[in-house]
């Protein structure tokens, strides 16, 4: 296997853009990434596009709109980890030597409100079992039971990420919110309040991969993808990992193990982390599953200032999905763009000093998880 380098990155800010098509969002990010990499028409050999709601041949439409079509183009759907899955596939092509340059991008225009997902059979929707925030809430209840997490801790996570998001011009929400305001926001599903949940939205991100180093010499040291272990089933239709804790490794734990091994690093080597925070509880569970704190230590991690910019290991310096919002196909690659900027020292006011090793994490329906480790 040969090294895989990030030659260029591009991002369309996350938010709501009524006047733009999803194709236009994707094209914006792709042009930026290829432009930065100095890669033109005919100079990349394959493209992988992460998206969930964009419909048939969505990635092809983006490349067609830019006069870049013709190469093998594959649309990748893996729930919230779609962009990570696209990156894992793209990186493998370069690592094995099949292709020298591969374009990876992701984009989304999410419907408003609670995410409707064809994952659920119609009867589950009719019976009220497709209530995504309720699954998040059960996971949060489990953290309260097993990890000493309090409702205030969930608020603290959201407060941290929103405070971080103020420094991110690409985030949808750039306003600091106090713990009290978060606690006072409407209860969606106990214990989760409205301001502890991320909003689905729109955006795009792109990464040009190459067998040659690019700006800042950022390398994809690992891109590990795992789906739910067959031994960890709460009914075979479990829509969310993390609801049951039956002692079987979760997708995130398995992907993290693979990624750490492949990259030859461990949690203590990380300098900056962007991880799945679709709700405050998800951030705490992700921290535990990635080994950033001991299992069951999530509550203590929050209360000791875990993840703060001034802490040993800043988590979601970008503001996370709580600030940026979540365009499913773009969210994982948005993390990669952000972390590439961090490793290049180009993250502006949210720069983590001398960051050398970075980790990105997404997890979603399937259930599946992607853990990416970047090194400079």
């Amino acid at each position, binding site marked *: 296997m040969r090294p895989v380098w990030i030659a260029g990155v591009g991002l369309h800010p996350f938010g709501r853009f009524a006047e733009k098509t999803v194709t236009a969002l994707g094209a914006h990010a792709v042009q930026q990434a290829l432009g930065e990499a100095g890669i033109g028409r005919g100079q990349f050999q394959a493209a992988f596009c992460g998206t969930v709601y964009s419909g048939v041949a969505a990635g092809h439409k983006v490349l067609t709109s830019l006069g870049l079509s013709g190469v093998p183009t594959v649309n990748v759907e893996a729930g919230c980890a779609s962009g990570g899955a696209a990156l894992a596939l793209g990186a493998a092509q370069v690592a094995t030597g099949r292709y020298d340059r591969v374009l990876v991008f992701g984009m989304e225009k999410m419907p408003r409100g609670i995410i409707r997902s064809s994952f659920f059979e119609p009867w589950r929707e*009719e019976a*009220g079992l497709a209530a995504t925030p309720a699954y998040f809430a059960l996971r949060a209840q489990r953290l309260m039971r097993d990890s000493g997490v309090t409702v205030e801790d969930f608020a603290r996570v959201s407060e941290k990420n929103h405070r971080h998001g103020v420094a991110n011009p690409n985030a949808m929400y750039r306003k600091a919110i106090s713990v009290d305001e978060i606690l006072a926001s409407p*209860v969606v599903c106990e214990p989760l309040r409205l301001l502890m949940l991320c909003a689905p939205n729109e955006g795009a991100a792109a990464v040009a991969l190459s067998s040659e180093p690019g700006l800042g010499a950022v390398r994809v040291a690992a891109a590990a993808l795992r789906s739910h272990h067959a031994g960890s089933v709460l*009914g075979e239709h479990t829509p969310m990992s993390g*609801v*049951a804790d039956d002692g079987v490794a979760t997708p995130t734990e398995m992907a993290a193990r693979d990624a750490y091994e492949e990259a030859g690093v461990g949690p203590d080597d990380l300098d900056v982390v962007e991880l799945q925070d679709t709700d405050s509880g998800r951030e705490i569970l992700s921290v535990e599953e990635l080994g950033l704190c001991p299992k069951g230590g999530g509550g203590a991690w929050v209360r000791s200032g875990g993840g703060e910019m001034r802490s040993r290991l800043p988590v979601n310096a970008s503001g996370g999905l709580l600030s940026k919002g979540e365009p499913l196909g773009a969210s994982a690659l948005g993390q990669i763009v952000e972390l590439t900027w961090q490793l290049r020292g180009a993250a502006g006011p949210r720069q983590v000093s001398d960051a050398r090793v970075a980790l990105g994490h997404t997890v979603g329906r399937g259930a599946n998880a992607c853990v990416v480790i970047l090194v400079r």
Partner: protein
Amino acid sequence: MAARPIAPGLFVDDPEGPRLVAARCAACGKSHFPAGRVCPYCAADGASEIHVGPAGRLKLFTAVTAKPPGYRGEVPYGFGIVELEAGLEVIARLTEPRLDRLRLGLPMRLVLEPLFTDEDGTPVVTYAFAPGAS
């Protein structure tokens, strides 16, 4: 008019009370719901149908206050994980949305409850768990 189950094969209404239709794997002994021939834990074929319930125990719970997409019943409703016999755990509606009436470990019993009325006037029922021993 006779009620219609929300989907076939999920539950039966025995004379002694409702039961969920699950399946137990002969190879690994684990149960799963809804029933399928192939065991999702060990991939062995030929799991046999078992009827479980009505007694259960509440493992985790919350309440849903806003209608999720495609939902045809009323809000609020309870939502939780109930542990049944044979180590089977299911995600299910709870008839009780008032969280101060629920607690971890509470004995629960399987019930069938009307959810909505179909376009042709047929009442549609689903399974749920209510607090209390059966």
